[in-house]
């Protein structure tokens, strides 16, 4: 009996090992688009079209059956951002979906027209496409499936000098220049300009009046 059991065990092991060699699966391929606005916030659009097996797994794990889990997972994976306005639109007939959400805190303004964006990208090499857009390919292990995400990021149209770097945690950072909007306004935020101009005008006016008075006396 013991021999039989051991034999069964060995067969199971061998079978699983053999199965493992055959289970090279087709990766899930998602397309992601991120549009960053002038205030430094972003809108993400993710879409994917899956095969039958992938669709079944997706729906069990994240999709229509448990979209809130998908939301939580995305929120956790982008911990440096604040995500909101999630919308998930599955298309059962086509085995596809479209997910959108918005993000705050994507970009920081560094002053002097310099901006720094961080999208939670790691282990990828962004490729600049235009002056204000780039692509990146991400690969991620999702349990029993490999997810490949082809991402395209579009920055505001007036961006120049886009450069990629990495921060201390190895996340990709995107630094660029963008002129902030110029508006005719009442001085600056602290009204310092207006204050100084009032002071200057008062002094000049006083000098003018004194000279006038002197003139009238003479």
């Amino acid at each position: 009996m013991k021999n039989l059991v051991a034999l069964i065990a060995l067969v199971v092991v061998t079978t699983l090992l053999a199965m493992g060699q055959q289970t090279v699966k087709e990766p899930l391929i998602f397309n992601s688009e991120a549009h960053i606005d002038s205030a430094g916030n972003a809108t993400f659009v993710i879409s994917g079209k899956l095969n039958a097996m992938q669709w079944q797994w997706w729906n069990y794990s994240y999709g229509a059956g448990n979209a809130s889990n998908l939301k939580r997972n995305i929120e956790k994976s982008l911990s440096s951002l604040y995500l909101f306005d999630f919308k998930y639109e599955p298309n059962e007939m086509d085995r596809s979906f479209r997910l959108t959400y918005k993000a705050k805190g994507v970009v920081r303004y560094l002053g002097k027209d310099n901006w720094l964006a961080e999208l939670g990208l790691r282990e990828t090499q962004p490729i600049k496409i235009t002056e204000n857009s780039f692509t990146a390919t991400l690969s991620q292990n999702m349990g029993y499936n490999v997810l490949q995400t082809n991402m395209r990021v579009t920055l505001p149209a007036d961006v120049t000098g886009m450069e990629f770097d990495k921060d201390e945690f190895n996340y990709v950072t995107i630094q660029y220049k963008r002129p902030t909007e110029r508006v005719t306004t009442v001085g600056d935020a602290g009204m310092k300009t207006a204050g100084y101009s009032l002071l200057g005008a008062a002094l000049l006016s006083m000098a003018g009046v004194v000279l006038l008075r002197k003139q009238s006396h003479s």
Partner: protein
Amino acid sequence: MERTVKQYQIKYKGGTKANQMETFDFTLPELRIGRDPQSEIRFDPERELVVSRQHARIVRQPDGRITIEDNRSRNGLYVNGRRITGSTELSPGDEVQLGNNGPTFIFDLDPRPVPVAMPTQVIDIPSPTGVFDAQQVMDYVPAGRQRAKTIGWFAIPVVFLLAAAAVLWMGFTRETAVSKMVGDGELDIQIFPLQAMMPAAYKVYANPMALDGRFYFCKVVVDNKGSGELQDVKVDYSVPGYIDWTTADEIRYILPGGASVVAIYPQFPQRVVEKTTQSSERMQIRITYMNSGKLEKYEKTYPFQMLSRNDYMYTNIPVNEIRGQQDMEDNNDLAPVFITPQDPIVKYYTQQVQEKVLGGATAGVSQNPQEVVRFMMGVYEATRRTGMVYSGTSGAQQEIGDIVSTQQKVRLPREVITGNTGLCIEMAFLYASVFASEGLDPVIFFVPGHAYPGVRVNGQYLAIEATAVGGAGLGYIATADQAFETGMKQLNEFMQKAQQGAPGYSLIDVKQLINSGVHPMELTDDNFMRIKVDQLAQRMALGGPLVFQQQQTQQQL
């Protein structure tokens, strides 16, 4: 009619020469004023002390004008009541005073020249003759020059006033360098704190790199909903009794409409893993920022539950939001914090298993599946020989909505060893600790209501049913072969279910998670526990080295 100035007239009004008059020939180019004996207009050196020795002088200019200059006198020079510095033009009839309350005289010319502005006057204009024979009236005050002088006098104050207007206009219409910087910023803050923390996971909470920063302790979202920028926004936090005020992040600017997100990863001291009871703690958050040049501050305190070191929360998702098995297992990735291969007691126990059960063999250096299976079965055999008891599934989540069991007391592997009993999850943690201690890649398989250990070798999985010992397990005490067989059957089912995406079927790859920053707690050596392990080792040795049927089977094959 010709009117030629012949002499200067000085009519004293005050001082020692009051009511006297002196005349000086107009050919003199200047008249010196002072107490100096050389002065033409001389004052008493003993009594007119307010007058300087060389107080001033009256000068006939080449263009015919008469000017008076102050020679930097101590008490000043006044013309028509106004103090003058430097030089000023002097006209007939002007009153000159030397020092405040000093002597006074009226300056005059004899005869006085006729102003050209008087139209009824008819005068002869002789040709210019030379140096200063310009006694002609027209030479004295030329008409064009007078007009220009008048215009100049008016132009200066007008220029000043125009400049004032220009400065005012520029100041109020300057284009700013940053958009929408009109007015004040308006801070809007959202804080998402953790409701409860597992001390065992303190290294994960502290590490922004761990699992891509997923297990932050608190997230602060700072929005600027105003129309001006916010500057120097600083987010500080503290946990009284554990962490002093610490700066989480500093943000130079937040523009109108913009936002910044700060995830807080607090560095709790190692002593939190000594906590054996729960307690209520609080986190303080302080945000300071500059708004329109003013320093403003926001403070908030949040309570949270600090669990004991043995508490394992299956999920951090609020109970009323849990809707699936995956939600129940949201913290599965934190499980490795209870897997302690570096624990001296676990290492000692592993050493005893190898020595007493496996006859000194080791599986740690090999990636041969058969050797790995042998080691797995050896660990099981050790628990069987020492009479380890499976305590049942109490505490493990049983079903969705099982609120009580979202949190469970988990004995650490060293406590399972010395207590010789454990739940399925606890025994799985023990096996994983021993496997990792030997350099294997342990995994733990989660199925609804149960968990069991395994090893990943050469990209494949092996599993063993650790609870097939005494107690509420399979209903009988299985042999090592039977435990392995049961484990592999369960693994087969697991793979099918997991690939279908069946809820509740998940695994954790301990090595992968440790590499992702999920580091176990640090534990110190304990002599009492070592003695207990020694006692267990004596029982392990009773059966002698384990004979593996697989080896025999292979030989038969």
